[in-house]
């Protein structure tokens, strides 16, 4: 069983939902990525989504764009990101790490070399924002063969065929993008999310994480009632930005603790 599947199985046993924070590798500076990752775990993260910086993050709003630019100003490459995961694994053998990024750095690295090195570094999942299922069947296969879960996005506008595609090519969990727009956009439609999730979960047969637009403990708790996992990105980047960089791990851990507590307080109230 993959680390991601094991994590979801364990959480289900505890009737808890997964908390999945996102940070960009190398932001606010490369030396803080490892302390931030460990702080996320200390604050209650179940899985870490680690952003691979890209020069042209077309699907991201201003907050994650800024994070990407800061990381790139230090020359953070996919190669370095894999090195960071490798270092992280020396102290943490259980928390799954999912790389999230764009296709071009992976293509430049080379598909084969990437899946081999990602496996060796201890990467558990890969979410490539601009690889819809039609364009990445071969890549998804080779990830699977190396024990890495290909994670896909679904949107409110996704059609029936997409459920089948994702069920076929994806594993681990799927990421339900709860609103149209880019990362960091405003409010989400909770009722719509609540209606869709049971249907999606049934069709694709894997846990469903919800992201885009989750800002605080209250909105995270509301999502935790209906989804299997709560993904928080832009808000965490903002917290990293607000204050001295050296104290960012402590600030982020404190924020996650609040979110964790609010999510766990909804224990047993699950609607989905």
């Amino acid at each position: 069983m993959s680390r991601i599947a094991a994590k979801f199985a364990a959480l289900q046993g505890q009737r808890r939902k997964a908390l999945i924070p996102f940070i960009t590798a190398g932001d606010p500076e490369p030396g803080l990525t490892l302390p931030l990752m460990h702080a996320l775990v200390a604050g209650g993260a179940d899985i870490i989504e680690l952003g691979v910086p890209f020069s042209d993050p077309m699907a991201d709003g201003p907050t994650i764009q800024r994070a990407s630019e800061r990381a790139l100003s230090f020359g953070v490459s996919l190669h370095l990101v894999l090195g960071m995961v490798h270092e992280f694994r020396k102290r943490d053998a259980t928390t799954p790490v999912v790389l999230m990024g764009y296709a071009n750095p992976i293509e430049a690295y080379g598909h084969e070399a990437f899946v081999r090195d990602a496996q060796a570094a201890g990467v558990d999942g890969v979410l490539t924002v601009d690889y819809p299922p039609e364009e990445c069947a071969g890549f998804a296969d080779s990830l699977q063969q190396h024990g890495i879960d290909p994670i896909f996005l679904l949107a409110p506008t996704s059609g029936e065929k997409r459920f089948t595609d994702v069920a076929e090519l994806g594993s681990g969990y799927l990421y339900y993008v709860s609103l149209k727009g880019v990362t960091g956009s405003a409010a989400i439609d909770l009722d719509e999310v609540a209606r869709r999730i049971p249907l999606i979960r049934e069709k694709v047969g894997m846990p469903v994480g919800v992201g885009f637009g989750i800002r605080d403990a209250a909105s995270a708790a509301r999502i935790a009632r209906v989804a299997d996992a709560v993904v928080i990105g832009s808000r965490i980047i903002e917290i990293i930005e607000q204050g001295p960089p050296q104290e960012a791990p402590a600030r982020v851990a404190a924020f996650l603790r609040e979110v964790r507590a609010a999510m766990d307080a909804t224990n047993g109230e699950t609607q989905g």
Partner: protein
Amino acid sequence: MTQNDYSLPDERGHFGRYGGIFVAETLLPALAGLAAAYEEARNDPAFRAEFEQELAHYVGRPSPIYHARRWSQVLGGAQIYLKREDLNHTGAHKINNGIGQALLARRMGKRRVIAETGAGMHGVATATVAARYGMECVVYMGSEDVKRQSANVYRMKVLGATVVPVESGSKTLKDALNEAMRDWVTNVENTFYIIGTVAGPHPYPMMVRDFQSVIGKECIAQMSALAGRQPDQVIACVGGGSNAMGIFYDYIPHENVRLVGVEAAGLGIETGKHAASLTAGRPGVLHGNRTYLLQDENGQIIETHSISAGLDYPGVGPEHAWLKDSGRAEYVTVTDEEALAAFHDLCRFEGIIPALESSHALAYAARTARGLPKDRILLVNLSGRGDKDLHTVAERAGIRF
């Protein structure tokens, strides 16, 4: 495959291994809707008739072909003919595509159009058609380009458009495209994104090519009438590649006609300061399609340089990538200096001020013409007029207005 049954792209937008749809899930329904609407429109005689009417009476088509006799004589070799897209309304080929996409937007009931622009020519074309059809218009432009192209920014504003300076990344064309995509994914219900070149996710490369292919279609008829035959070479500059695809497309089955795309070598390919994606780039994924890109060894897109803002783009339309690999078209480069020399030549020998983009195609034609017999014919796409570039040219000469 023979060039006679050329039928690319396939239904998911692939030109061989290039093209396709590389976008986040959130954009896919919008692209599918666009592809379906375009498919329906292009099979509707009423849509085609209206497009042709607009091209005739608003744009001023057909644009003439002009035999540059004096310049050809000075060069002492092949005869140079110019397809005069510079005479179109708004001064470049961009308007052909602007009209086509705006008509499609209206048909789809979208009241708001957005665009990205580099030099500002596509922004001006979009602002123009938005005024013509009574639509709201927002143009994204890198803040560096806003500074470099202030005259075009003001042109867009008098036409009623809102110009949004983009501060992210390199603050140039590629970043403007990213920002326009973000706007589109957020406002897709009422908004149509008018992409200005044969790039982006399917169906854009195909759709923009189709709208621009009027250029080559006219040339085939005009060259028969004017010279009694088709040219030996068709030459066009390549930024994103729309004026080149427009003039190449109907010539693809004419196997005796060489198709030559001219990329910007900037300060010289060896300096790294250029914009020659096909010549010096590697295949990768950017802006929704797979194509040749200028990128570093880590797959980050690198900044480009060209004296002409319209060629200053690190990618290129996927159909050109395919035409290059298949050998049907060849791609060459011209430096800033060579383009400037051709700019001045055309001004002085023919009384035509060409766009700096088009001057790249002219410079290659001049280089080639010299070594060829006088009965050879080179047809150059004069994609735009150079009024917008006088500032840049004057600055080079140390002149301030």
